[in-house]
């Protein structure tokens, strides 16, 4: 292991290059849109909370930007049936 480290000690640049490529590929996609996703999540939560009680952690908003297709995925786990029956009538 020591010998291996010694031999590879000098060529750290390829490691740096690879780490950067992976990191930036991720940051360019998600980084720019993280704020949008956070805003969406808050507003969706607010709308749902008006009508039913939900667990904040059970709402997942995901944004995937691709070259051709982008998807916005909203996953809301509903509360169990017993709870929803107990809730008051919707008043609009």
């Amino acid at each position, binding site marked *: 292991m020591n010998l291996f480290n010694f031999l590879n000690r000098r060529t750290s*640049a390829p490691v740096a290059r690879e780490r950067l490529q992976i990191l*930036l590929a991720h940051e360019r996609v998600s980084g720019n849109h993280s704020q949008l996703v956070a805003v969406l999540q808050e507003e969706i939560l607010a709308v749902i909370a008006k009508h039913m009680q939900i667990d904040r952690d059970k709402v997942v908003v995901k944004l995937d930007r691709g070259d051709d297709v982008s998807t916005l995925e909203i996953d809301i786990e509903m509360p169990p049936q017993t709870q929803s029956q107990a809730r008051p009538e919707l008043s609009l």
Partner: protein
Amino acid sequence: MAKVLVVTSGKGGVGKTTSTAALGAALAQAGQKVVVVDFDVGLRNLDLIMGAERRVVYDLINVVQGDAKLSQALIRDKRLETLHLLPASQTRDKDALTSEGVARVMDELREKFDWVICDSPAGIERGAQLAMYHADTAVVVTNPEISSVRDSDRIIGLLDSKTERAEKGERVDKHLLLTRYDPARAKRGEMLKTEDILEILSIPLLGIVPESQDVLRASNLGSPVTLADPTSAPARAYTDAVRRLMGEKLAMSIPGDKKGLFGKLFGRRVA
């Protein structure tokens, strides 16, 4: 037609102020009317690097707030008649800069000069965004080091979204200026290579400034490196960068301290 150029990087300590001074002086040496503007409010240093720290009376904030006329705040360089400095304030904070005020000052500078070079503060906050907002051209200063490359990538994203040009659906011309480069270490695989960084950031290369003792010597003396020692390796790199900025097509090389042989050895390895 005046050009507004921002020298930016995200990361601190990579050479924004050194590069602003060197590029500004080299442009003035080429006969252009140049003003270098320090946007680093509260931490001004461009005055020191330019050797004008004892001549500052009024600053950018005084002009932005209407307390001084632009002509009162501009400091003319003692060595180059066409080179001017608009210093930042050392005592105020950057909240004193209003976007309307900055816009008005930039308009006035555009009328007076061929080149308005804005030295951005580090970071991506308000100060950095104000410095880049009016830019036509950006020089992204990057060291061959992962944190600097990552921050440059972030800044490139902001140049494409948070500038006046971006808001109008136009583009800021972005250029990469690689500083503190050590060709020998890059060759041995100890340092990111020019082509690695170009591939990752994918903006055109303006120049490669080699790591050199001449840069510190110039800043000690309060003189842009292109004036302090015009034949030094970093000065030649900056002078070449300026010729490219003015539209010349030059083959890319890394100027070396040992003229000739060094350049021949590494000149070919550059993208």
